[in-house]
């Protein structure tokens, strides 16, 4: 990877997730769940869905 010019895929995702926190139009529970799972390297559809299920009840 040409580090001077290109960001790694992980960096791109991390920066993007950080930018979500500033977007007031988004559901906070969804953003928090994504942030938490990605930081733990545990972001999968099943895990995300499970957290979102609890946030609706």
């Amino acid at each position, binding site marked *: *990877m040409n580090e001077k010019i290109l960001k790694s895929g*992980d960096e*791109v995702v991390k920066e993007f997730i950080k930018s*979500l926190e500033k977007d007031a139009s988004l559901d906070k529970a*969804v953003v928090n769940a994504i942030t938490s799972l990605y930081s733990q390297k545990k972001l999968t559809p099943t895990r995300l869905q499970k957290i979102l299920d609890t946030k609706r009840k």
Partner: protein
Amino acid sequence: MIRLKKIKISGFRGARYPLAIDLTSSGKSIAIYGENAAGKSTITDAVEWFFKDRIDHLWREDCKADALRNVDIDEKDVTSVSLEFTAKNLASEKILKKRGNSYITEETNKTAEFKTYISHAKDERLDLRTAYLTEFIKKRKGEKRIELANIIGYEAIESFRKVIQSTQNALENDPTYIAAKKILDTAQAKLLQLASKVLRNQEELYITANEILKPFKLGKTISDEDSYKDCIQDLKSKVAQREKAEKKLKLESLRSQCESLIKALQDADGSASSFLEPYGRLIESKEKVKLLDLEQFLSKGKELLNKGLAEPSKCPFCGSRVDLDHLREEVEKRIIELDTIKKEFQSTKSLKDQWINDLGNVRVIGKELEKKWVGLDISKELETLVEDSLAIANTLIKATEEGFPRYEKISENKKWKETKDKLVADLEARVKKADDEIKTLTFTKEEQTILEAIEKLNNLKTVFDDYQQNFKLRDSFERQIKTLDKIKEDFTKVQNAAFQNMLDLMSTDISRYYLYLHPPGDEKVDQIRLRIVGEEGIEFEYSFHGKPTYPPMKYLSESHLNSLGIALFLSSVKLINTKSNFFILDDIVTSFDHGHRFRLLRLLQEEFKDWQIIILTHERFWFEIIRRELGATGWILKEVDCTPENGIQIKGSWADYREFIMEKKSQDKLVANDIRNLLERLLKEICQSLEVKMAFRYNENNEERMVGELLSELRRTVNEKNESIKDNPIFSRIETSNFLGTAGSHDRPQDISKGDIEVALEDIDALEELFLCSQCNTLVSKKRFVTAEKKITCKCGKLGLDWKGAD
């Protein structure tokens, strides 16, 4: 950046005995020639295995560790690849060991620096083989995107996008969400019927309820849950026939609940058909079930690995020693391969969930019905039918939830079908009976008006509660779905910008390299670039006769596609390789015409002069071009040879060959044929040095001269030029050694003893000593003829032989 200093391969693929390639301490580039099937790719395989712990072209065919061992080596012989680098601390030997029925690998370098380097280098672009030249170019645009993401390390981006998309799909198809929308529609219709408008909040409900109450002048209004109940009680107290009134209200409620249960049973019937048919078809195929089982097994294994529950370096599946990182990668790759079948299964999962949800509804409404009929005339048969239906629905839910993940056969059993049909019929009959019973209950006009108001208030409250509850649920789902959709949309922009940035960087190089190989003047192709196509794809775009077009296959010939493949590889090397300063080009010019081969060499010289390049080729002409173009720039040029006896070996000097024979001898291997070859090489070197005259022969025929001819011509020259050594007994002894070598290598290897071999080697050494200087290690040469002394000497001048004339 790091270069290769030495490659040593042993007992690996085509290398039966140690194959050492010395690239010098500065890590020089090298071109290696070997005929087709001479085993050159053993070198590429070795480097790939060293870094990636796998060899793609073998692993794809399911040929794994056992295919790495040379087929001729003994059980006790070691399979290993050792690499030395310009960074000394990174040198390591990778050894393949057999343990039980499987193989394990071991690295001799255990340092953190080495591990860090390997983890970087395994993702770098270290080799390009003919077979893979156009593989990427010929992929579909979606596959190109995934492949490129892997090449440049953008898997995290692909994976994030996939998670968001999958979760959004899952929420959109969630049975609870679908049911909530359905209930909401029904409740909305009922509210319109009851209140002539949709009641959005409790205030609107209370306003409507108070309007219903208004004609009865209760002297109070509804403002909350409690006052709602109070007002209904007050209305009831206005009815003189209280018992009859209670019964009518109960019958109305029973009728409504019976109708709800009929509807729930019909819904469950519909969702059963939607699920059971495709699911049955899926599990009917044993092949598909096998793949689903495998996917599930791998997914569980992956979960275990991700949770860190596997013991270090131990395979959680079979217990053998493995590199867990590598295993995790392998498991993930296999799971991706099984993605299609998993998707097919998942589409039946949402149908299954819907059915389970509908059966659950039957249970909830059924239980509610049991409460509603208390104090009313209900037949024992209906009671039993409801009770049985709820029990069977419960059994079906359990059996389905248990059987579905195991791909077991699931069906509506006969008892359920019979009970359900009978229940629907009985419920319909009970609805009719309730209607009839209600008709028999007569009230005064005023009482009738009050009862209608109570029923309306009750219905209004029930439907409104249903509406509110499901409205919140639907709203909650939609907020999450909308958020995921926006995240996906925003991320697509970020992702495409990141991809395009990388593609632009690559495109500049790709275009330059390609146009170097195919200048735009004589071709009609120009302005090549990689660009994002739609949401899912990446494609090469190029200008053909001035018009932008894609894909490459549309107009480009095989040779042009090859050039594009090389241009892509070279651009990715420059972009991605940040640690390793070397790469291998394995036989990549096979379909190139000569003009383009020259251009490729010039391109490498100009654009990659700071890189260590290893070129392997089976084309003599191309090798000779490399020799002429790059020989003077410090490139090493070597040839490899492959014999059934010795496997792949670098063709080296007789000194290298002598070392090889000693190595073989130390392993108690037969070396008679090698003795003959060694003698042949030594005689060729001496004859060349003394300019011994031979009969003219063309090209490779010149190389094929045998010991007999070489020795005979050498003796003739020595007889003529130097009287003092012409009678040296070594010449006749060498003839005997040659006889030993020939006999031992052909028909009677068992007749040759170790002692014979040692004598033959001593004779060869003696012949060598006669012409080779022990100080400067060079042969006496006719080129160094000292006229005054009539002598020829070695380079340092210490060894000299009398020589009659320089002609």
